[in-house]
């Protein structure tokens, strides 16, 4: 469900953890594991051969199909959020329990069930607005 009327690109998903955030997009088609895949002291993605290897999560809008790996990843998200190193918002196609839990306990706005097309349309570095009250993702500038 993307709309390009009046030049804005929008996607409708379902707001799971309510909140609002605007920031730079970090987009991947590969699931991320927060336990082992992310440095808990810096929020930098460590997973070898991941297309986001070396990128930093802090203050970004992370768009991914879903998370993966141990449910302990929830605690890593929580810990990152407490130290302001977590993504400002997370957007998923089909959220997994680990990511969902991490977002609730870390109070990170989460929008789930966005169309897969969002991951190919939105590019790294785009400025994106996440309205997790209404489940709306809007590309502000690219």
């Amino acid at each position, binding site marked *: 469900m993307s709309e390009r009327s009046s030049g804005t690109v929008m996607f409708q998903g379902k707001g799971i953890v309510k909140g609002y955030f605007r920031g730079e997009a970090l987009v991947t088609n590969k699931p991320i594991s927060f336990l082992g895949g992310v440095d808990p002291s810096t929020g930098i993605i460590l997973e070898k051969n991941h297309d986001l290897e070396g990128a930093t999560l802090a203050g970004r809008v992370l768009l991914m199909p879903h998370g993966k790996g141990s*449910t302990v990843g929830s605690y890593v998200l929580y810990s990152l959020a407490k130290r302001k190193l977590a993504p400002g918002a997370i957007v998923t196609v089909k959220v997994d329990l680990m990511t969902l839990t991490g977002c609730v306990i870390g109070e990170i706005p989460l929008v789930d069930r966005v169309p897969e097309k969002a991951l190919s349309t939105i590019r790294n570095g785009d400025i994106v607005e996440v309205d997790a009250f209404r489940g709306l993702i809007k590309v502000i500038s690219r």
Partner: protein
Amino acid sequence: MKLSKTEKLMLRGNYGDACKKALELILAIADSYGYGKLVKIRSAHVSGVSYKNIGDAGIDFLNDLAKSGGRVRVKTTMNPCGFDLDKPWLFNVDDHFFKKQMKIIKLLKSMGVEPTLTCTPYYVGNKPIKGDHLAWAESSAVVYVNSVIGAYTNRESGPSALAAAITGRAALTKDHTDDRKPEVIVRVSLRVSDYLDWSVLGYTIGLMVPSQTPLVKLKEATYSLDKLKCFSAGLGTSSSTSMFWLSGEDKDLEKVDVTSREVKEVRDKWMLTRRPTLIFIGCPHCSLREIKSIARELQGKKVRDDAKLLISTSRRVYEKASQRGLLDVIEKAGAHLVKDTCLVVSPIRLSKSDVLLTDSAKTAHYAETMTNAMIAIGGRRQCLKEALEQ
């Protein structure tokens, strides 16, 4: 979502911040994976207890939750931690790990979680009955209580089980209703008899059907509750299912055959080709009956000087074994009956020259990701024989 008066108050913060956050999590799960409803639970079982698993991030969370008034509302038990509290030296535990682990246990205890430190809480007083609704984590226990006892629980995570314990509620999903039905038929043509057979069969089925609930049709099998426990652990390791069926509706279901060939693939991968240096029995934790039969085999014998034999169980079963003289027999043979922990969640270090022999496919599976040592599986008889002086 329709909430009861109590739930509305919880969400408003009248039951404290911890309860509010916990309910938010359960509601988000109900909304995303369930029927948008909650179900009251009779007990909970919490995983993610070992410092090796949850690390400082986990302590951070538990600490905040306890400080904001977290307190369980139903009987809640604790999964194993990183070492035997009375014999930490057996598990390469350093000062740092020791302190962090004790802190985790203290935090969970302060919230009312019983320090059972076992993956088999159903042996030590957290025993559900058919039809009970629960919020349990620890996949082997989840699969066991759903399939063998007939209780209802989601396959909870550490944090979601704790949140359910604090609110007394779980997300109502298919796993809490009689909509849970077999999704695939697994026809097993080989004979299954000892613990290893059951463990490997569960693990193999999970590899073949990793996300569907199997109806397992066996031709020739020797059952016991302990063996079904080993099967549950094997299946829970390689599959995301929360249960299996041994009988039930099988109309129009896809069929999968498990023959000795599929099982042999797993067995060959973990074949013993050298003398083991560490022999581990007790994943999941041994019942008293299992310890009795192991003690019988060890009576009057001696473990090799160059090998270590660990038999793991829960604190409560350990005490019973001690009262009945079984501990004496085991220790006289030079073996260790250990409690509170298991190999997988302990920081134990194995070197490349070590050879681990176990009768659990679950232990073999996880040990592989932890160490460069050789990993092998063998039946319980073989495990004991390899450990003993000839």
